[in-house]
């Protein structure tokens, strides 16, 4: 009976731990009401050739991101705002412990409503520093986007110095009728035999936190 009670107690602790970690992450996220940052966006995507672009990003609590770049820049659709959506609406998700990996706590977030745009989210958390090191968010609109985070000076606010978005680019297709290169009828596409994953690296510097 004593052992059974101990076992039940340990299960209860495990069940509460992701909720506590998630709650602390949300509290840390709530500290920052707005910030401006200069970002360098460097996409590496099959079928798209673009040089790195500088942009100014303004964040407004809870999940507003405004990106202003001098030229054309490419970003994951809703890529910046999906993690803030998770943190700004903690009651809409149920955190579940999913083990550990490289000393990082893995928390799976399940939406409480069936019609939620986010179907499943998984975050890898450095519980000691309360930092999200990796996220994998599957949504109805964007598919699965994985994001890795690096932190530097602004880690006390939970603001990353580098984000790497990795996304599936299998579904990219070039409308042939519009890309008429008369002298290129037999040339194979560059992506043939190559990885179908694309990535976008975003380097942040000069944070101005309000």
């Amino acid at each position: 009976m004593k052992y059974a009670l101990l076992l039940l107690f340990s299960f209860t602790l495990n069940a509460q731990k992701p909720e506590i970690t998630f709650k602390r992450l949300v509290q840390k996220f709530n500290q920052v009401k707005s910030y401006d940052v200069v970002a360098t966006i460097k996409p590496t995507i099959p079928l798209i050739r673009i040089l790195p672009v500088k942009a100014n990003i303004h964040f407004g609590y809870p999940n507003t991101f405004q990106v202003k770049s001098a030229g054309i820049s490419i970003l994951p659709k809703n890529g910046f705002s999906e993690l803030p959506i998770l943190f700004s609406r903690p009651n809409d998700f149920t955190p579940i412990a999913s083990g550990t990996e490289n000393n990082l706590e893995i928390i799976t977030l399940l939406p409480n409503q069936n019609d939620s745009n986010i179907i499943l989210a998984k975050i890898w958390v450095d519980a000691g520093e309360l930092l999200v090191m990796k996220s994998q968010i599957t949504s109805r609109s964007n598919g699965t986007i994985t994001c890795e985070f690096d932190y530097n000076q602004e880690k006390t606010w939970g603001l990353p110095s580098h984000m790497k978005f990795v996304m599936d680019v299998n579904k990219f297709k070039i409308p042939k009728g519009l890309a008429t290169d008369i002298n290129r009828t037999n040339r194979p596409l560059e992506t043939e035999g190559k990885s179908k994953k694309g990535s976008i690296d975003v380097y942040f510097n000069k944070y101005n936190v309000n």
Partner: protein
Amino acid sequence: MIFLYSTFNELIKIALKPRSYLGLAAITGLVGIILFALKADGMSMISFVTASFEQTLRFEGEVLNGNLVAFIILQMLIVHIPLLVALVTGDLISGEAAMGTLRMLATKPISRRQLLGSKFLAGGIYTLLIVIWLGVLAVVVGRWLFGPGDLMVLNSDGLVILQENDVLWRYAGAFCVAFFALLTISNLSICLSCFSDNSIGPIVSTMAIILLFTIIGTLDVPVFDPIRPYLFTTHMASWRSFFEDPLPWDSIRNSLIILTLHHVLFVSIALFAFNRKDITV
């Protein structure tokens, strides 16, 4: 000196023909329609191109800008410009033969070679004017109406996004290559003009040749593979190479060599034919 006078006379003759302004007017009208359409509903056209990317990605910044508009105009119109060029240059010799003024022209103290050379030069200047006018309308008016910005180009390899400060020299290069390609049409039509005594023949023949070569070039049939690289129509679109990154210099140089060989061929045939042309009847 007499060669320059003769060229000047040819230019005056071109300027006095109403059909010479048909090309300029057609380009102005077509560019105006394209600019209006893009201003009114350009983003829907852009989203048609970027739709498959926008399921996962988001394009930030002004995608529809003057540089993209200029590229769209070039892409749409450069196919039709040969007709407008041939309409004037195909008439330079056969038109005079039809009116009977060629005989009178030949009585002047100028050799047939110089006379033909002046017609080739005048045809080239007219072609240059057409290209410059297209360039002014596409790039200058396009940038004025839509503003500058990065250029997003759709190739068969994918999307290439070129930064704004990297675009203008590419347009300059593209227009030079486009002019060189159109000069081939001008020379071909003048060459055909040497064999005809009516205006319509060389113009229609030029268009028929362009059509035939374009079909051979675009048909993905192995039997045409050996000849396809040597057709001038294959290299008519080489102006597009200037919007690739990195720039395929070998491909551009190859196109220029093939086009130059065509220039030499057409001028040589024209010289041979014109020197032996019976202008007494």
